[in-house]
């Protein structure tokens, strides 16, 4: 146990005879850990080093209260914290040292800001008298992270620690979530606080007031458009999951009978079995959802930001449609697509308040239009992918078989590239909060660390990482973290010996000039074994079911490598600069 505010002095081996309730002053490092505990933190992903050593010395005393997971590279800590945050909705916490420790975190922080992921990064910094002197492992972390953090702050005085950490958690989690970075100089970690430690949670700030309840007039204007629409189309964004608005969304959709489609990060918020679920949107989304985006008369966008991968050519995007935009971040309103009826607020509250204002409706004929496109897509793409006549295994078969075996209820963590798009297409999500991937930043190497972060957050759920052979080698060392922590994540490598998505673009748009996309890979199973992780390579279709069964039956981490067709392409596709209605099927 560490220092406590009210330590009781006892004489060993007998009843306490002296009881002193004198408040003891603690040092900055203990204040850091006690503040984290007060914020409800149970797990920290971190990596020690010179400038953060006082905090690591303190954490040694709190191992019964805080689980520290030692990653193998700071980028892994950031993605693990993201995976944890994405599955739990709670703040993920990273603890790293100054200089390279901090810069290694940068990719993960940039990933978290663009995918609205709550994270608090605590970074060691050189002692305050050394700031600006190019001291060993000094880097201007504040300067570097301004554009990629929701808030950052440098602490040089131990007394500030509880208040700033409380503020950090409040800012990271409230409103549109995002990463917060706290840079703490080594002397602030070491010095005693001059007043007793008190941690009070932040409930509001002078200059930051995220609006949760939308304005009545905005809701009324939105409801009017919704009630007038003949061909309304609802887009489910990441904001639905962040707000925990899945049930409110279903109630809204069932009352209005509006067809819905999901963005990449909105996947799993609505079950694929729901009769109003029409698929997903964007570059590799479904045929009908993209084409009919340009034929609907109203878009109801819930918690999404009209990413360019969703819209394609903006000048030809949904020009015929009016737009209701439900969004917690006012800066997203009109940023890409003009909203006829903006609704600024939390998605859950907004949908709840909107429900009594909208009419019951029936959109059978309109919904049936999506089905027509589904039949074409099914015949041209989905069936050939799922039941191929070629010899090599296709990614789609692996993913759909996994989907069936896990009843669509596993947590799927996809990396970035073709396998990611295939996972989004072929995994049949039936349970909310089941899909974690790097959407905005497209960070290769995300999935392996994010998967064990997710497993920490959801220990009772099956967590499967879908990773390409290229991505896997970007954070391969995190196998060590998985082995040491014993977290039973299941890893599937879809190995085509290519950087597949780049190869696909080179094939389609660069006359098949395959410029540096072919990989000479190591023996992944031997590598896994070296880390103490069991694995198996599946090379034949006949072996696929048994391989997946073995993997899923394992109560330990497990690596399954599947050798898939080398030159497979992801379709449908809206090429860059094309219009969503011009989506290509081949």
């Amino acid at each position, binding site marked *: 146990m560490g220092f406590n505010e009210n330590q009781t002095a006892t004489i060993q081996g007998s009843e306490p005879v002296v009881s002193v309730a004198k408040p003891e002053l603690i040092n900055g490092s203990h204040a850091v850990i006690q503040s984290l505990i007060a914020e409800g933190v149970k797990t920290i992903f971190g990596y020690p080093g010179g400038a953060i050593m006082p905090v690591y010395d303190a954490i040694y005393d709190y191992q019964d209260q805080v689980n520290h997971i030692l990653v193998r590279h700071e980028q892994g800590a950031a993605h693990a914290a993201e995976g944890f945050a994405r599955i739990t909705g709670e703040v993920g916490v990273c603890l790293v040292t100054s200089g390279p420790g901090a810069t290694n975190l940068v990719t993960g922080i940039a990933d978290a800001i663009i995918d609205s992921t709550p994270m608090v990064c605590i970074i060691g910094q050189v002692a305050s008298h050394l700031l600006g002197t190019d001291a060993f492992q000094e880097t201007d972390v504040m*300067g570097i992270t*301004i554009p990629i953090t*929701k808030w950052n702050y*440098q602490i040089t005085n131990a007394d500030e620690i509880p208040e700033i950490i409380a503020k950090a958690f409040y800012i990271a989690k409230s409103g549109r979530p995002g990463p917060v970075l706290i840079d703490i100089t080594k002397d602030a970690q070491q010095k005693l606080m001059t007043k007793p430690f008190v941690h009070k949670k932040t409930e509001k*700030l002078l200059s930051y007031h995220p609006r949760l309840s939308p304005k009545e007039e905005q809701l009324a204007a939105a409801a009017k458009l919704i009630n007038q629409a003949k061909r309304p189309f609802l887009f489910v964004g990441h904001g639905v999951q962040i707000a925990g608005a899945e049930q409110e969304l279903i109630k809204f959709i069932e009352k209005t009978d509006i067809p819905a489609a999901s963005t990449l990060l909105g996947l799993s918020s609505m079950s694929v079995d729901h009769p109003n679920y029409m698929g997903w949107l964007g570059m590799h989304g479904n045929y009908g959802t993209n084409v009919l985006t340009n034929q609907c008369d109203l878009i109801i966008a819930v918690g999404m930001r009209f990413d360019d991968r969703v819209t394609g050519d903006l000048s030809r995007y949904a020009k015929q449609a009016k737009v209701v935009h439900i969004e917690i971040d006012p*800066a997203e309103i009109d*940023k890409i697509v003009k909203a006829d009826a903006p609704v600024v607020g939390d998605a859950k509250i907004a949908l709840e308040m909107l429900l009594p204002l909208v009419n019951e409706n029936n959109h059978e004929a309109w919904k049936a239009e999506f089905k027509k496109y589904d039949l074409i897509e099914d015949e041209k793409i989905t069936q050939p992918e799922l039941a191929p006549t070629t010899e090599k295994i296709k990614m789609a078969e692996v993913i759909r078989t996994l989907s069936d075996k896990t009843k669509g209820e596993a947590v799927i963590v996809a990396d970035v590239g073709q396998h990611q798009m295939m996972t989004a297409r072929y995994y049949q999500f039936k349970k909310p909060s089941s899909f974690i991937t790097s959407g905005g930043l497209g960070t290769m190497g995300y999935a392996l660390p994010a998967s064990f972060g997710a497993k920490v957050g959801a220990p009772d759920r099956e967590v499967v990482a879908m990773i390409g052979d290229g991505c896997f080698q970007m954070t391969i060392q995190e196998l060590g973290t998985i082995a040491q922590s014993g977290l039973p994540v299941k890893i599937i490598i879809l190995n085509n010996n290519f950087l597949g998505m780049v190869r696909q673009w080179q094939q389609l748009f660069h006359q098949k000039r395959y410029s540096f996309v072919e990989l000479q890979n190591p023996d992944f199973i031997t590598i896994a074994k070296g880390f103490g992780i069991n694995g198996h390579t599946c090379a034949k279709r006949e072996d696929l079911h048994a391989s997946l069964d073995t993997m899923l039956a394992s109560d330990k981490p497990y690596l399954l490598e599947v050798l898939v067709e080398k030159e497979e392409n992801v379709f449908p596709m809206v090429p860059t600069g094309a219009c969503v209605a011009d989506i290509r099927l081949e």
Partner: protein
Amino acid sequence: MTSYTICVFTENTIGILNKITTIFTRRRINIESLTVSETERKGISRFTIVIRHESRDAVEKLVRQIRKIIEVLAVFGYLNEDIAYNEIALFKVSTPIGAKPLDIETINKTYKAWVVYWHLTYVIIQKTGTEEEIFEFFDYIKPHEILEFVRSGRVAVSKSPQTLVDYLPEAEWEYYQ
């Protein structure tokens, strides 16, 4: 290109300027002038930033992005007609012996500019006014050889009767008296 004046009210902490300017640079918007000072309330700074832009839409988006900085209390974008504004300029003008003397009366009466320092071979003239007025005076004084010229950033207040407190009634202002 239209001139926009952006007034940003922030908590006065280290690094805010950097947090604000990064939003401009990322969007490739050049800052024409910048003035920072503490407001009538202790601990609250006011940034007055002048930019030129062809798209009002882009400026509105910029303003909304600045508002996202946690320490920013409020941001207002103004057109010139919305504000009372001024700048100050100093001119170091050469006055060598034997040269044509300065017409102090014209400088004072026509241009409302004042000599604030006399030297044997030069004077320093202070001129307050809008950018246009300062450049009118610049053209007038130019034949005398300008040794140095410096212009401040714009200071501006809105013509609206509302103050910051009216925009942010929920804030705990007693903390910043």
